[in-house]
C-alpha cells in the first residue's frame, strides 16, 4: 500500500471512530428534515384548526359561500348582528366576521374582521367570494351555467423544444438531486479537509509525519480520505432517502437514475470535489489556530457557492450568456453544468468537452499550487500565515 493510501485510510479510520463525525452524519439530514419540514408542519397544525366565519350577508350569497368551504377548515355561520354585537357576545377564539353588503360591492372592498390574532386562510375566502360574485355577474349578463363553466376552464402551457420533443426535465430531476447531493457534501466534508490539516499543525504532528511521508503523499492522502468520508456521508443519506422516496412517495429512484447524462453529472461533481478539496487542504495548512484565523482563508468556502449566483439566469435560459460564462469559469463550472444538464434538453457536446477540459487543467494546476503551498505552510509554526506570505510561497 502506498503512503498516500495509508494516510487516506488513517483519515477515514480516525473520523469513523470519532463520535462527532458519526453524529454529524446522522444529524445533518435530521436537521434538514427538522428545519425544512417542521415549520410547515407546525403551521399546518395551526391551519388545520376549525375557523368560524360569521357572515352578515345582505347580498344573498351565503348558501353558495357555505358550500365552498370544507367544514373542518372554515365553518360558515350566518349572522345578522354587527361586529360590535359579536364582540359583545364574547366569541373570540379563531373567529372572524365578514360583511357582505351593497356598499362593499360598489367599492370592490369587502371587510373581514378578525376577533383575535388568529387569521383564517384569507386567500381561500377571497377566492370563494370572488368566484361567487363573478358567477353571479356573468349570470346577470345572461350566460347559462354551462357557459359559465366553459368560461372558467383554464389553459396550461405545453412546452415543446427545438427538437420537437416535449420538455421533460422531471426525468432528470432525480439524477440531478443525486449529483447535487454529492456536490453539496463538498460543503460539509470540505471543512473536514480544512480542519484535518489545521488539526495536525495544532497537535504538532506534522514533523513526525513528514519524517515518514512526503508532503505530496500527505496532501493526496487527506484529499482521498476526506473524499471517501464525504461519499460515506452521501451513501448514508441515500440509504435513508431512497427507501423513503420509494415507499412514501412512490419514486422509483434506481430506474430514474439510469439516464445517459448521469456519468457526466458525476464527473463534474467529482472534479469539483478535487478542485475545492485541494484548495481547502492547502489553505488549512496555513492555519495553526482556527480561532484567530483571518477572513482570507475563510473566504475560500464561498467559492463552491459561486454557482448559486448563476441559477436565476440559467433557469430563464440554460444556453444564455450568463450560463456560458458560468460554464467556462472553472470555479463555477461543476455547479453550473449540473444545473444546465438538468434544465436544458441537450447541452452541446462541444461545451461539455470544453468545460471539462478547462476544469481538468485548472484542477491540475490548482493541485500543483496547493501542493507547493502545503509543503511550505505545513511546517510553519507559531502563527497563521498572512495572505502576503501565502502569495510569496506560491510564487517562490
Amino acid at each position: 500500500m502506498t503512503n498516500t493510501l495509508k494516510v487516506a485510510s488513517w483519515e477515514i479510520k480516525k473520523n469513523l471512530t470519532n463520535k462527532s463525525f458519526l453524529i454529524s452524519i446522522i444529524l445533518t439530514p435530521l436537521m434538514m428534515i427538522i428545519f425544512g419540514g417542521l415549520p410547515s408542519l407546525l403551521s399546518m397544525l395551526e391551519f388545520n384548526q376549525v375557523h368560524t366565519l360569521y357572515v352578515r350577508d345582505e347580498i344573498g350569497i351565503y348558501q353558495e359561500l357555505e358550500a365552498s368551504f370544507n367544514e373542518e377548515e372554515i365553518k360558515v355561520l350566518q349572522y345578522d348582528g354587527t361586529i360590535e354585537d359579536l364582540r359583545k357576545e364574547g366569541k373570540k377564539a379563531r373567529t372572524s366576521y365578514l360583511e357582505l353588503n351593497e356598499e362593499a360591492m360598489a367599492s370592490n372592498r369587502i371587510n373581514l374582521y378578525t376577533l383575535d390574532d388568529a387569521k383564517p386562510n384569507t386567500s381561500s375566502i377571497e377566492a370563494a367570494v370572488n368566484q361567487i360574485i363573478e358567477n353571479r355577474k356573468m349570470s346577470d349578463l345572461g350566460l347559462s351555467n354551462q357557459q359559465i363553466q366553459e368560461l372558467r376552464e383554464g389553459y396550461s402551457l405545453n412546452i415543446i423544444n427545438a427538437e420537437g420533443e416535449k420538455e421533460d426535465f422531471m426525468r432528470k430531476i432525480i439524477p440531478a438531486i443525486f449529483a447535487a447531493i454529492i456536490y453539496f457534501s463538498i460543503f460539509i466534508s470540505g471543512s473536514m479537509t480544512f480542519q484535518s490539516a489545521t488539526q495536525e499543525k495544532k497537535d504538532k504532528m506534522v514533523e513526525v509525519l513528514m519524517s515518514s511521508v512526503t508532503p505530496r503523499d500527505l496532501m493526496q492522502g487527506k484529499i482521498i480520505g476526506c473524499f471517501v468520508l464525504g461519499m460515506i456521508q452521501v451513501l448514508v443519506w441515500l440509504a435513508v432517502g431512497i427507501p423513503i422516496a420509494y415507499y412514501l412517495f412512490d419514486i422509483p429512484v434506481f430506474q430514474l437514475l439510469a439516464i445517459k447524462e448521469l456519468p457526466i453529472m458525476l464527473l463534474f461533481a467529482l472534479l469539483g470535489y478535487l478542485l475545492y478539496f485541494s484548495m481547502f487542504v492547502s489553505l488549512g495548512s496555513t492555519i495553526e489556530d482556527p480561532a484567530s484565523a483571518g477572513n482570507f482563508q475563510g473566504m475560500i468556502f464561498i467559492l463552491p457557492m459561486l454557482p448559486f449566483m448563476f441559477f436565476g439566469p440559467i433557469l430563464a435560459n440554460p444556453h444564455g450568456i450568463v450560463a456560458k460564462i458560468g460554464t467556462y469559469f472553472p470555479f463555477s463550472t461543476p455547479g453550473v453544468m449540473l444545473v444546465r444538464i438538468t434544465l436544458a434538453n441537450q447541452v452541446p457536446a462541444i461545451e461539455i468537452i470544453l468545460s471539462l477540459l478547462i476544469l481538468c487543467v485548472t484542477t491540475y494546476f490548482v493541485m500543483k499550487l496547493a501542493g507547493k503551498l502545503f509543503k511550505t505552510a505545513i511546517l510553519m509554526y507559531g502563527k497563521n500565515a498572512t495572505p502576503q506570505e501565502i502569495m510569496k510561497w506560491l510564487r517562490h
Partner: protein
Amino acid sequence: MEKILSIDNISKEFGGKTVVNHISFEVYKGEIMGILGPNGAGKSTTIRSIMGIIYPDSGRILFHNHNSKGIPINKIGYLPEERGLYKNVKVMDVLLYLADLKCYPKDKAKKRILEYLEKFNLKGKEKVKIEELSKGMAQKVQFIASILHEPELLILDEPFSGLDPVSQDVFKEEIREIAKGGTSVLLSAHQMNLVEALCNRIFLINEGKKVVYGRLEEIKESFANFKCTINGNNGYNVDFTLFPSVERVESVDDNKVIYFKKGASVNEFLQKLSKDIDIKELHIDRISLHDIFVKIAKGGMNND
C-alpha cells in the same frame, strides 16, 4: 568504524540569513553522536535537512548503506523538538499508524509497543487517548514511536526537555541500549551533563558554523584546561597567581577556583603548594562541557 551518515559541506539560508554555514560531520554505526549549540545555532535546521523535511541550498547528505539518492526514511527514527501526537486518538492506534508509515509489520509493531509501554511504566495505557496522558507520558509515547521500527539511525532533537529526572534516566538507559544494539544515535540536547554521560563524539555548532568536532575526551583535553578548587580558610594571605602555571583565580567565600594555563602540570603545582595552606577539600578536574558551552554561547570562543 562503519560510516552510516555523512554530512558533506551543507549550507542553508532563510530570508538572506545563513542558518547553516558549510558544515560537515559523520555518524558511525552504533555510536551516540551529540550535536550541541546554543538556541538558534542551526541544530534543528541540520536535523531537518537530514530528515529531508527541508533541503539544504548546497552540500550533500549521504546515507552509506543505501544506494538510492533519496533518504531511507523507513530506516530513520525521529523525535522532533516540536512535541505532539494526535490528541483524540488511542496510544496503540497512533503508534501502529506511525509504524505502518515506516512499512514495519503490524504484528511485530504491536508486540514491540506492548513491550515498550511496559518498559516505560505505561502498561495498560494502550487504549487510552493521548489527551488523557500527562505531558511526560505523551513524550514517552512519542519516543516509542521513534524507535518502534528498529531504525538504523535515530535522531533525537532535545529528547530530555520537559522530563523529570527519573524519566531522564529511563530515556538515557534506553538510548544507551539502542546504540549497543547497533543503531546510530544523533542527539541534540542542552543538558550538558547528559551529553557528557551519553555521547561518544560531539559536534558543536554556533551561528551555523562548526566550532568543535571530535571525540568527547579529545575535545575536553584540547579545550578544557585543568582547574583546582580548594576549600579552606586562606583569606587573602595566599596569592595563587604567583605560580607560573596559574592563569587566574576566582574566590567565593572559602572556595578558591584556580584555573591553569594550557599544558600546565598539575603535579608540579601540587608539589609546590605550601604546607601552611588550609585545605578542607581539594578537587582537580577539567573544565566541564557545560563551561565550554557557556563560553561559546557568550561568544567567548571563536568559531573554528
